């Protein structure tokens, strides 16, 4: 029973780390521009399908596709940002959420047109699919890999935000955009880069998600809710908040599905609403 729970918590933590990679970009861009980007999941889906296509049709190894997934999602997001998002930075949250929901709907239909509605599995190398057994405990190698990757990304982001010049510029824009503009920072350019990096991480998350949760056209909508929970509960533009929330989210989800399979995601949503009512700006809110 104890060993069972250790591996459940391990699985939950790995799942949470996947959610973290998927949503961390949304947290930063939302905190920076106050732009409600519900299409973040669509960028994640772009990354996932890039990996599927490259591995299936071009025979690339899994690891080689990951940087491409990152870049493809980042490039796609810049195009969409330039074409559509720019016009709505001063619009209401309602208009922003509707525009981005529109993009989600279009992306779902396009994905269904190009790849069909069924899940797209990929063939991972054997060593990633095996399990490590230590005494009573048994861990999947792929989940271990995701945890390590997410921890590296977290370290990279925290260090980058706290100790680099660009990180300081991002923080300045998040804290007070008008003041940053007044001091001569090119907020538009900084935002575009941040947005591209954030969407890139979403694309990477989409690629990593294939093996763990599968990818199909509804991915953009299905995981949107989880991303929003991470952002809303974790607090805007807080890497630490997103990290802890995502970890807790993954563990709660896996444990509640194991113990109360019938109640589905009920417990998860209940916890989310309760937390938001308690701290409307998120648990780790900076402002």
């Amino acid at each position, binding site marked *: 029973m104890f060993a069972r729970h250790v591996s459940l918590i391990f699985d939950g933590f790995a799942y949470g780390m996947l959610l973290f990679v998927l949503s961390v970009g949304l947290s930063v861009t939302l905190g920076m521009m106050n732009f409600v980007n519900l299409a973040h999941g669509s960028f994640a889906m772009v990354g996932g399908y890039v990996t599927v296509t490259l591995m299936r049709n071009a025979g690339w190894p899994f690891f080689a596709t990951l940087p491409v997934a990152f870049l493809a999602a980042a490039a796609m997001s810049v195009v969409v940002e330039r074409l559509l998002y720019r016009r709505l930075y001063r619009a209401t949250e309602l208009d922003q959420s509707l525009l981005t929901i529109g993009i989600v709907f279009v992306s779902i239909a396009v994905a269904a047109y190009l790849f069909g509605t069924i899940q797209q599995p990929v063939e991972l190398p054997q060593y990633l699919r095996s399990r490590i057994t230590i005494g009573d405990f048994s861990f999947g190698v792929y989940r271990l890999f995701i945890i390590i990757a997410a921890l590296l990304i977290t370290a990279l982001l925290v260090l980058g935000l706290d100790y680099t010049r660009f990180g300081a510029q991002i923080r300045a824009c998040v804290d007070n955009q008008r003041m940053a503009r007044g001091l001569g920072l090119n907020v538009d350019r900084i935002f575009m880069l941040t947005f591209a990096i954030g969407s890139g991480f979403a694309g990477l998350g989409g690629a990593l998600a294939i093996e763990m949760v599968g990818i199909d056209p509804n991915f953009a909508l299905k995981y949107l809710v989880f991303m929003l929970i991470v952002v*809303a509960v974790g607090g805007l533009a807080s890497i630490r908040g997103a990290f802890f929330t995502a970890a807790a989210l993954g563990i709660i989800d896996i444990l509640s599905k194991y113990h109360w399979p019938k109640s589905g995601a009920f417990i998860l949503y209940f916890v989310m609403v309760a937390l938001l009512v308690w701290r409307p700006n998120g648990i780790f809110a900076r402002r």
Partner: protein
Amino acid sequence: MADQFKAAIDPQALLREQVRWRWIETIFWLAVLLPFWVTPTYLVLCSQIAIAALFALSLDLIVGYSGLVSLGHAAFFGVGAYAAGLLAKHGWGEPISGLAVAALAATVVGYLTSFIIVRIGQFALIMVTTGLGLLLFELANSAHDITGGDDGLQGIRMWPVFNYFRFDLYGYTAYAYSLAVLFVCFLVLRRLINSPFGLSLRGIRENPRRMPAIGAPSRSHIRKIYVISAAVAGLAGGLSAQTTAFVALDALSFQRSAEVLVMLILGGAGRLYGGLIGATIFIVARDQLAGMNPQYWYFWLGLLLIAVIIFLPNGILGGVAQLLSRKGRSS
């Protein structure tokens, strides 16, 4: 012009002016009767439009008039639908009292959640309304014994309306019944919106900080309109359950909440008729496009949404109003 000027300084004259019944409204409400003679084969679709219009109208009260965003409004629609459906399934198929029960159930849920709604700001509000919607969806899904879960609620038997008009296969009764409920609700809400209460709601929409500063009890106003909106959404849900004799789990889904918001924005929020026009266009378009290829209906829906937000920020009615006023100024 002189009238408008006078109205601007005299609030009562302004309200009287707005509540005045215009000839184009008479034409609109006569036109909705046309399907009985012109397209009698589409009456079932027409009753769906009337129900969706009522649902969009209820959302307009909070989105259009009070400036709150809700992505979980299907919660009230679904609660109303299940309340009316369960009542009819367990032996009481009288439609009018069924609707009352549907509205009552939605009112209770709206009242309980209204305490949460007034406490939080915009982004958290989107999340919390979404979360509450999902919560109810999961609840209905897991309570399989009561709601039928994924299979939907079956075995609803309705009695005739007023013990006389049977629900027929062609939808004559369904459309007339839905339309009557829609019209009555519309009249009540139209009066409500053009009252001092409605005016202070618009004040909250325009400037949520200033209204409390000039002494208006914003929170209690928001709670009131939220509960009223929930009740009307519950009515729409009840109508849907009664006219189709079926409740799908889909009635509580996130897609349903998103769709009704799309209808409202498409028509134009904050104009009462926006929801009605939007629902009509939306459902007719879905019927036509999904008839061609159901899978790609979402593509056109998304494209439409993007186009409306970029080119017609105030919806179709807003665009028409702008065109008319431009014409009026130039001539």
